[in-house]
């Protein structure tokens, strides 16, 4: 059961009505939350988010595999970078006035059509990439934490061994 009353930021709610007082409403909400938690327990407070998970930085307190961070930072930087513009190099086809214009127009439309379909695939691939990169970022962070715990436990074990050897 929750042990302390809920306190909301006094300015979290805004009601521009002279006859309604946000502070009174906030107090009522705080009381309701306290009662609700007492009745139903604490709700979950962490949800997945669509935003990309940030790439972890190289740790300064533990040893690490340099390649892991090198590749991780690189993939974080490039996984969503795709060329999405048509690349129209000069065509040596013709310099005939009208024909070259028409030919240019056809090329432009053909490029745009191809890009339309390519971009759909690129968008899908970017989503797959993002999810994989997010997982790698999270796993790397979790790995760091576990590494720190192992070091702490190792130190504790060494201390206990030393004690028992005395």
């Amino acid at each position, binding site marked *: 059961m929750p042990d302390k009353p809920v306190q909301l930021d006094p300015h979290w709610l805004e009601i521009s009505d002279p006859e*309604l007082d946000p502070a009174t409403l906030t107090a009522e909400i705080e009381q309701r939350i306290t009662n609700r938690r007492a009745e139903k327990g604490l709700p979950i407070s962490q949800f997945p988010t669509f935003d990309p998970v940030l790439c972890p930085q190289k740790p300064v307190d533990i040893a690490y595999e340099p390649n892991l961070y090198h590749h991780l930072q690189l993939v974080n930087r490039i996984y969503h970078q795709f060329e999405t513009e048509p690349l129209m190099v000069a065509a040596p086809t013709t310099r005939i006035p009208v024909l070259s214009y028409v030919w240019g127009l056809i090329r432009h439309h053909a490029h745009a059509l191809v890009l339309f379909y390519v971009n759909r695939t690129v968008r899908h691939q970017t989503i797959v990439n993002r999810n994989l990169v997010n997982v790698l970022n999270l796993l790397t962070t979790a790995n760091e934490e576990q590494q720190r715990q192992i070091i702490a436990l190792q130190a504790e074990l060494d201390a206990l061994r030393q004690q028992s050897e005395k």
Partner: protein
Amino acid sequence: MTRLVLHQFTEAASVGDATTDQVFLIRQWLRKMGFHSEIYAEHCAEALEKEVRPAHSYRGSANEPYLIYHHATGATIVERLVALGIPLILIYHNVTPPEFFAGSDPLLVRLMHKGRAQLDQLRPLTTLALGASHYSEQELQARDFTRTGVLPIVLNPALYDIPPNETLLAECRRNGPTLLFVGRIAPNKRQEDLLKLLYYYRRINPGARLILVGSAHFQDYREWLEQLAIELELSEALTITGHVSHQDMVTYFRGADLYVSMSEHEGFGKPLIESMYLGLPVIAYAAAAVPLTMGNAGILFHQKNYEALAEVIDILSQQNDLRQRIIARQRGRVHLFLEPTVQQEWQTILLALGFNLG
């Protein structure tokens, strides 16, 4: 006497889009005032092809002092307008910050960057830059546009005073309390946060539902939302309608119990005023243009505390006096955005530009 000419340009004309609706309404006003006025677009929905001319077919005439251009994204039409060199009345509907699409849609990121950069390209040609909200006007001023103003998104009452889809309305009302959000399914609209709120609200009211109305152009985000709904065991309580007819959209407004917005970027937020007009209380996250559109109406929140928001929703569903008071203030506020008011503002703008409206 020479007839006044004032044509409008937009990158794309599509059905159910706030910018396109505004373009059509302005054309109607201009024609009523005696102008010769057409709409030109680079891309046009099939249903609008009879009303909208292809941008490449535009031929200027001598008695055209200005062109009107509606800017909302990175647009190929800008190159055309710059090449024409005719002074512009720029109507800026705001460009979504590209960061919202970073890592998910490279094409959109590029388009949004381009849309912002194009403001600098348009500035030397622009005689008057109008934001669709004060928020957008502030952005124009920050980009060194000197002569600026506001022409808000307008709500035409005739389009909303229509009979609902009775079958759909009955379906809406048959189920538990319904939270509604209208807007395309996109990361900047933060529909994911609405799901999180629903999760909390269903701890209080297990029959509650969430309806998300709007096109799902951003298919990957929709799939992500559906996955989140499965994880939170909310699939049965969530409806994603996709694009709906105007009548059905109005019906959802009429059938819902509360309009909730978690959106983190709105250039104006037309569904907010649609809710106000149709008598649906609004509770909205105070981001971007939302506080300026809401003004002194509805309920705004500055922190996404789902647990607290769920209690606010429950209070609103239980305390009818509070609910009615909020609805009444919203009805007062929405008058600023109704057609007669905005049309008057438009006339004032044209007079200030030197048009002789007789």
